[in-house]
């Protein structure tokens, strides 16, 4: 590779991008101007409102016979004004009164009897002035209550400690820096990742799909620059621009927030809400580590975004493609910010999550070099993989010279031209649509009634709705769903590869269980479902239905838009990952994704969705039979014995690996034969 050529492309891309007003506004305008303006504006308004509230008197209406005594208690309370009113409730609603004090018992008599006077405060939680009034009154009443208690104790000749048999003293041993670091650790890594995504988004689209749309790609390809040099030059430009944008955004946001926090903390230097930025001491070494890990992360995000944008034919289509990925990079960052999620042997290997968790640890000053190395290695690995993917996509003539038109952005059916399979944009869009519908509608339906809920979700949302969309936009359903009868040899292979996969994926799930526990609530819910329904119903609902509907969505519609438009391995990986994510339970995501990848591979190679459905049915059916203890008795005993003996387990896994490999070889041989016949 000629570095001079790469640098020439890098310089030109930077120059051209920086000449674009849209980029300048997004990169520099927003961080430098918008954040300070936004925060200053918000802070000014908040301070103004706070000062106004402090100055205002709280208007209190008294209801009941003991009003005069209350008046006496409140006489020395500052900023409290007793107002006379005929209809206190109405005045509170109208905002003429801030709080109503209601006492139904006789105060003197109740106190003389050493009983408790019930004081009721009516206020409007949505009105700040009413809230303030309630706080002021509450404080005054607590003080009066303490005074009256002391009087009672004195009268009885008792010590003050009589009323307080137990006293807790909470002592936070965390230094202020750790507390602040822990709080920042929940937001800062996520913010950093979002900012990197924001920074990479526009250049990744502009330098690839944008260039295709402007018709300059072929001009560049006609020069002696090699494709790998072009990708590297462009990638470096995206990387530099993403880093600049992320740094500018973070610096601007950090400076604005810290100046605001310092201002609000006042002259004493007290922290606001436990956040004391001044206590946070991040060493130069930590900052260097931060950058060292951030670089491969930025590398990873930029490569994936560029690879995805490259697949699009124009700017708009690229934006549609990248949006789901953008959402997907936020999820691992969000997962890292959850309480209890820590850097361990598994999370060190999850891209994005690992970096976010390392930042979190760094901010509280508790990271070790070994973790940094592991996170660095894992991130570099994923970054390299993503870059290799981007280069592979760039090598494809049909992708880089693609000038097909995208799907029209309209609901008018006449605007759609009949096509054999959906566009990649539509396939990517189907994933978040299915996720959202399943989350908002499916979960609700299944809570109401499990059986009908699953049937409605699966046949309605996963299969029916996407097929209806395909028909509406004139996409060939048969071709898209690969509705082709499989060869007998392929059908014979499926049970073997399915059972081998079940063994291997369960082995993984067992190992994963040491780090990611299955949520108890989920286990209990599944137990209730399995106890409640008979085997026939469970086979239909848990095995047959998902085998049909989830396959239609994942290996049918989603995969149809991706296959042939990216390398097969990328299609398999993406479809598997989306399939895993669709299952929403964190402990299930990776095992389901792995199974999803095997099914995607089988459907891709055999060209028949029925192969996927059979695999899916065997997998789910096996789980149902195992849970209902309905497997043949001999098999049950065999499995139990195997589980107890370590040697037996090794043997089972060994056999599963061999069966899996043999099945893959058979499938590959069939595929090659098919290609030879075609050619």
């Amino acid at each position, binding site marked *: 590779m*000629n570095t*001079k*050529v790469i640098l*020439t*492309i890098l310089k*030109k891309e930077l*120059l*051209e991008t920086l*000449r*674009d007003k849209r980029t300048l506004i997004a990169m520099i305008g927003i961080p430098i101007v918008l954040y300070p303006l936004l925060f200053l504006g918000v802070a000014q308004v908040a301070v103004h409102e706070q000062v106004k509230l402090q100055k205002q008197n709280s208007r209190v209406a008294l209801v009941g016979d003991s009003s005069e005594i209350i008046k006496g208690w409140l006489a020395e309370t500052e900023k409290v004004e007793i107002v006379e009113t005929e209809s206190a409730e109405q005045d509170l609603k109208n905002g003429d009164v801030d709080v109503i004090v209601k006492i139904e018992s006789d105060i003197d008599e109740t106190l003389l009897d050493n009983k408790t006077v019930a004081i009721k405060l009516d206020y409007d939680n949505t009105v700040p002035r009413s809230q303030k009034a309630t706080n002021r009154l509450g404080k005054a009443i607590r003080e009066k209550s303490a005074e009256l208690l002391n009087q009672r104790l004195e009268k009885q000749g008792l010590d003050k400690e009589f009323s307080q048999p137990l006293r807790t003293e909470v002592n936070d041993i965390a230094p202020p820096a750790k507390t602040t670091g822990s709080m920042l650790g929940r937001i800062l890594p996520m913010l950093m990742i979002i900012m990197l995504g924001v920074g990479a988004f526009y250049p990744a689209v502009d330098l690839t799909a944008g260039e295709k749309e*402007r*018709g*300059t*790609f*072929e*001009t*560049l*390809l*006609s*020069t*002696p*620059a*090699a494709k790998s040099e072009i990708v590297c030059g462009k990638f470096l430009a995206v990387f530099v621009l993403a880093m600049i944008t992320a740094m500018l955004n973070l610096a601007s946001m950090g400076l604005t927030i810290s100046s605001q926090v310092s201002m609000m903390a006042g002259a004493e230097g007290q922290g606001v809400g436990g956040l004391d930025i001044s206590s946070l001491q991040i060493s130069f070494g930590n900052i260097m580590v931060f950058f060292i890990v951030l670089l491969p992360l930025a590398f990873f995000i930029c490569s994936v975004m560029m690879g995805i944008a490259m697949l699009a034919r124009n700017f708009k289509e690229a934006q549609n493609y990248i949006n789901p990925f953008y959402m997907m990079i936020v999820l691992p960052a969000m997962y890292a910010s959850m309480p209890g999620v820590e850097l361990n042997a598994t999370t060190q290997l999850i891209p994005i999550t690992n970096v976010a968790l390392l930042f979190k640890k760094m901010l509280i000053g508790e990271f070790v070099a070994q973790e940094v190395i592991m996170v660095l290695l894992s991130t570099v690995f994923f970054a390299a993989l993503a870059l290799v993917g981007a280069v592979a996509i760039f090598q494809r*003539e*049909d992708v880089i*010279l693609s*000038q097909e038109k995208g799907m029209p952005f309209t609901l008018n059916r006449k605007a759609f031209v009949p*096509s*054999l*399979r959906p566009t990649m944009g539509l396939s990517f869009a189907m994933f978040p649509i299915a996720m959202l519908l399943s989350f908002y509608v499916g979960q609700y339906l299944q809570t109401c009634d499990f059986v009908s809920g699953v049937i409605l979700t699966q046949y309605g949302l996963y299969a029916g709705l996407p097929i209806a969309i395909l028909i509406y936009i004139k996409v060939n359903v048969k*071709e898209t769903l690969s509705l082709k009868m499989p060869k007998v040899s392929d059908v014979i292979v499926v049970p073997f590869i399915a059972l081998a996969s079940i063994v291997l994926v369960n082995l993984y799930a067992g190992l994963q269980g040491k780090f990611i526990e299955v949520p108890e609530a989920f286990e209990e819910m599944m137990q209730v479902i399995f106890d409640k329904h008979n085997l026939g119903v469970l086979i239909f609902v848990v095995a047959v239905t998902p085998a049909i509907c989830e396959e239609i969505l994942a290996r049918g519609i989603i995969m149809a838009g991706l296959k*042939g438009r990216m390398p097969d391995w990328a299609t398999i990986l993406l479809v598997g990952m989306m399939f895993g994510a669709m299952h929403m339970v964190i402990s299930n995501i990776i095992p389901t994704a792995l199974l999803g990848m095997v099914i995607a591979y089988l459907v891709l190679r055999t060209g028949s969705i029925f192969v996927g459905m059979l695999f899916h049915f065997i997998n789910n059916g096996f789980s149902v039979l195992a849970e209902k203890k309905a497997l043949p008795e001999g098999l049950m005993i065999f499995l139990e014995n195997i589980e107890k003996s370590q040697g037996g387990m090794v043997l089972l896994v060994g056999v599963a690996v061999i069966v899996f490999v043999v099945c893959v070889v058979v499938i590959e041989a069939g595929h090659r034969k098919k290609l030879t016949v*075609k050619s």
Partner: protein
Amino acid sequence: MTDDIEKEIEFLILILQKFNMNNLENENVIVADELSKTFLAAKNRVVEAVKKVSFSVGKGEIFGLLGPNGAGKTTLLRMIATIITPSEGECFIDGKRSDIDPQGARRDIGFLSGNTRLYGRLSARELLKYFGRLYSMEEDKINRRIEELVELLDMGEFIDRKCESFSTGQTQRVSIARVILHDPAVLILDEPTLGLDIMTSRTILDFILEAKNRGHSIIYSTHYMTEAELLCDRIGFIYDGSILALGPKEQIYGETGTSNLKDAFLKLADDADIAKGEVAV
């Protein structure tokens, strides 16, 4: 025995000719040898965009490539320009085999088509400098060459303006400058006068004739038959991915019994359709 030796010698001469190592006997700068390109379309249907096309272009020769839209012209030109790789066949550019040394081949090619546009946010000068660097030219040489081209193509008025503000004529002149900046042996020009006014077209055509006189080998693709008649030394008619006729225009007139390229082309296309049984008799 003697026959075997003769056959072996013939084979060696053929190899030497292909690799252009015997320049004394062979002046062919572009050699397309049975170039084919197949695409995988929907339903795994194999589409043959170009079918075993062979021709050569000598030094100082203009080869006209004529054909209707969708005939395979752009795919063929892209293969010769090494932007896409042939499914079958070989192509030699000034002795370099394009699939083995595509970068080397591209150094000797100037490629202009409707899909090779300019960077709108760069000025013409910045754009030419950028391409000069991609062709590994020295900075001094790039600057000297730009001044020459400014004069040659009358670009003084707009050389420092951004390309996005150019008229069609100015765009095409800068594109031509970009194509010949590195003084390539081969020019591949796909519809260079499309959409231009008469004056600009004449400038471009004059330039092409000058380039021919300077010894450049040119493949010229156009829809304008009169241009082809005026410029081209030899013509290749491409239709449905295949070359229907190849040779000097007089030879084609003779073969088709016509007197101009338009009639010759229509005759050849009709004959091809009839041969395929596509025209109802």
